[in-house]
Structure formats: structure tokens, C-alpha cells
């Protein structure tokens, strides 16, 4: 536990806060986006915002995989789960996400569908091997942290010739999402959202390395500091960003030196490259269609692609108009800007995806920050 608890030390946090207060330029505003939901959660849980000078504002980014999954793709998963011969398995948070008409995979299960929750992708393989009479589909979601495990089990399924196993692939890539925020009209033209720098993801970067961010830092003149998920990591990363902005620099720096190298995990990258290829376009909730932002299974492993096997159709749907998740995912709105927040929409009965996972901005605010922020009437 040393390498967890050590990074949650209260006195060191007080010291870092004091250093930060001395380093900020009181004449300027610092708008920093934490891309990743893991950071959003840590910031809310440990009250990191309470330790920051008032001219530093944190903006929550779209790095919550269940939050950014487009509703039509979730609808398609529910329809798949309702087939009598199919067993659909996925990660816990995914099962609770509301689809259109307030359906969810958990509700589908209550109505008789065979939907199972797994902790590790490997369990999907085990379920397929143990149930040869069922067509087992792994509903795969997540960023680069999660993708290599899916690649590995597809290769294992290929090796074991597990004919009853397939994967409904919804994996997405981080750099495309950051690019879309920097290119969005809110940031570029309307000036609605100001992002001066990014707190970069820790575990995504453990896999892809720090190199992929160099493009944003250079091309868009925004510093990126890759940070660990513990509160001291976040505080130190904010300090590093403030220092870069004060000095007029914009480079990629790595605070999470214990887990991230510049090249990342080459073996995991190799597995992903073997099994997956980029789709020319992929729909994200809140961000819309983003070019080259999602992965699909290569035709060499096409027999394990549920989209081919079942001819999955993705049909557009209209979402609950009152739900502000799309704006919250883009950083344009805060959870408390939503009239449903904490009233009709709560973690027990979520209406929007941001209220489901602990990484979602709404769920983190509801759990830890309800008293700290003004709420809408």
C-alpha cells in the first residue's frame, strides 16, 4: 500500500498547495482540463479544488468510457442481449448506463436476458468456454488502458478456436478526443470553453506513452502534464502546468514517472495493432462523429467480430433533451448547470451516463461535492 497511501499524504498536500499559491500569477486565470475520469474522481473525493488558488479552474474532460458511449450503440447491445441464444457480458458500470427509453442492460436482465457482469476481460473467455451452447458476446468498451486486454482475449479465442465467442468492439482512442475538444467551435471560435493546458491520463499513457501528446503541445500550444491518479500527483501536475504557462512554454511533461515512459508499453501496443484497426469515423456521446477515433476488429479476426456475426445495426435515437451530459462531456457545462442533477437524476436512478460511473463528472459531484457548489433551483 506504500505506493498508494504515500501519494495521499495530507501534510504534503498542504505543502504543495502552499507552493502552488506562491507560484500562481494573481493577474491571470488558469483553465486546466483533466481529460480523465479517474482524475475527476480523485479531485472530487479529496477536495483538491479546495486547495487551489481561486484563479485556477479545473474543467472535467470526456475521459469516462461509459459516458462517451453513443446511445445507439448501447441500444444495439441491449437488442443483442435480448436474443434468446446470446449471453452478453460486460464491465459493471456499463450495465447501469441508461439507453434510449430509459432501458439499460440491467433492466434487460431483469426482463430475462442473459447479461453477466465481469471484472476482467478474461472472464468473458471463461464464460464462453464453460457454455458451448450459448453465443457469448463481450460488449467491449474503454480507452487504451482496457483495449490491450480485449486484443489478448481475441487472440486467445483464436488460438482455442472458441467458435461461440465474439466481441462487440466499442474501444476508443484518447488523442482523437483531445483533438476534438481543441478543434471544437466552443474552444476555437466562441471562446465558451477556455483550456490553457491538460492534465494527461495516467494509465492510458502507461500503455501509449507520453509521445502521442507532443502534437497538441506543439501544434495547439497547450502544455500537457501526465499525472498519476492520487491527489498529490494531481497537485504536483497542476504546479507543473502553472509553471509552464507562467514561463510561456507548452511541452509534454511527465509527473507519473513511476508508470509512464515516452514510448509506453510496446508489447500491449503490438497486441492492439495485431487485432484492431481504426474506423474512419466513430460516434461519441457529446462529441459527435470523430474521425479515426474508434477501433474495429481486423478482418483477419473477423469471425470474432459481433458486428459482422450478428449484422448489428446502429440506429440514431433522440436523447432526453433535459439531460446536459453532452455539454458536460465537452466541458461546456458543469453538473450543477443541469436541472436534473440531484433531482430526477441520481446515482441510484441515473438519467444521463455522467451520473453512472464514479468517473462521470455528475456522479463524482453528487457523491462528494453536493454541499460545496451552488445548485440550480
Amino acid at each position, binding site marked *: 500500500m506504500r505506493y498508494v497511501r*504515500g501519494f495521499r499524504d495530507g501534510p504534503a498536500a498542504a505543502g*504543495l498547495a502552499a507552493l502552488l499559491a506562491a507560484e500562481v500569477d494573481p493577474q491571470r486565470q488558469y483553465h486546466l482540463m483533466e481529460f480523465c475520469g479517474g482524475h475527476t474522481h480523485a479531485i472530487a*473525493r*479529496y477536495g483538491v479544488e479546495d486547495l487551489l488558488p481561486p484563479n485556477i479552474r479545473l474543467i472535467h474532460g470526456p475521459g469516462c*468510457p461509459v459516458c462517451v458511449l453513443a446511445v445507439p450503440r448501447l441500444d444495439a447491445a441491449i437488442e443483442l442481449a435480448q436474443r434468446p441464444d446470446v449471453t452478453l457480458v460486460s464491465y459493471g*458500470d456499463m450495465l447501469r448506463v441508461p439507453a434510449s427509453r430509459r432501458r439499460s442492460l440491467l433492466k434487460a436482465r431483469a426482463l430475462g436476458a442473459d447479461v453477466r457482469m465481469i471484472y476482467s476481460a478474461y472472464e468473458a473467455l471463461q464464460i464462453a468456454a464453460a457454455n458451448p451452447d450459448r453465443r457469448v458476446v463481450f460488449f467491449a468498451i474503454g480507452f487504451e488502458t482496457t483495449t490491450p486486454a480485449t486484443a489478448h482475449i481475441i487472440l486467445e479465442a483464436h488460438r482455442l478456436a472458441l467458435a461461440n465467442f465474439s466481441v462487440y468492439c466499442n474501444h476508443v482512442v484518447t488523442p482523437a478526443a483531445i483533438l476534438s475538444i481543441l478543434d471544437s467551435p466552443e474552444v476555437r471560435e466562441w471562446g465558451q470553453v477556455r483550456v490553457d493546458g491538460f492534465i494527461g491520463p495516467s494509465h492510458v499513457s502507461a500503455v501509449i506513452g507520453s509521445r502521442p501528446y507532443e502534437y497538441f503541445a506543439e501544434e495547439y500550444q497547450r502544455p500537457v502534464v501526465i499525472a498519476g491518479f492520487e491527489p498529490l500527483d494531481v497537485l504536483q501536475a497542476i504546479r507543473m502546468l502553472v509553471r509552464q504557462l507562467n514561463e510561456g512554454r507548452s511541452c509534454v511533461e511527465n509527473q507519473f514517472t513511476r508508470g509512464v515512459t515516452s514510448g509506453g508499453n510496446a508489447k500491449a501496443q503490438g497486441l492492439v495493432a495485431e487485432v484492431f484497426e481504426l474506423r474512419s469515423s466513430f460516434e461519441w456521446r457529446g462529441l459527435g462523429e470523430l474521425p479515426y477515433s474508434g477501433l474495429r476488429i481486423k478482418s483477419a479476426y473477423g469471425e470474432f467480430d459481433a458486428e459482422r456475426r450478428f449484422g448489428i445495426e446502429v440506429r440514431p435515437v433522440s436523447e432526453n433533451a433535459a439531460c446536459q451530459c453532452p455539454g458536460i462531456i465537452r466541458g461546456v457545462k458543469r453538473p450543477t448547470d443541469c436541472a436534473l442533477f440531484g433531482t430526477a437524476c441520481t446515482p441510484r436512478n441515473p438519467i444521463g451516463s455522467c451520473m453512472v460511473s464514479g468517473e462521470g463528472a455528475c456522479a463524482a459531484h453528487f457523491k462528494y461535492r453536493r454541499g460545496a457548489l451552488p445548485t440550480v433551483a
Partner: protein
Amino acid sequence: MCLAIPARIVTLLDDQWVETEVGGIRSRVSIALIDPVNLGDYVIVHAGFAITRLDVEAAEKSLALFDEIAAHLKGPVDALRPRIP
């Protein structure tokens, strides 16, 4: 979703699996995604898979820096108060 924790390898089971320990809890973890590891190494575990080795030397360096900051700047003792412990 991308949450992961550092865990120490306590048993090498085979070339694909190890047993790890965190705070007294032991778990079976796949090492299929990383280069070969040794007994006693720390790995960062995400959803049953080790995604990278933890660089203990770098971690100790960061902790030493934080210790130094805590010792020099005596602020309120408990600046981080988790709402849920």
C-alpha cells in the same frame, strides 16, 4: 474504468499468470500484456491485467520529494480529507 492499482508480485504461476498482493489481498493477475517480470516486482493492475511495471525507483523519488515538501512547509496536518475514508 481506467482505474488501476500497484500490486506486488508474490508468486510466479506460469508465463501468463502471477499472484499479486495489495494490503493483504491476493489476486491472480495476467501478465500477458507486459514484458517478463520477477518475483517482488510491482505491477500496475487494471481489470485483472498488469498493464505496466511500476518503476519503484521513480516512485521512491516522488515520495522523497513529497516528504521533503511536507517537512519544510508545515501546513494543516490533514489537507486531504476524503469525504469517504
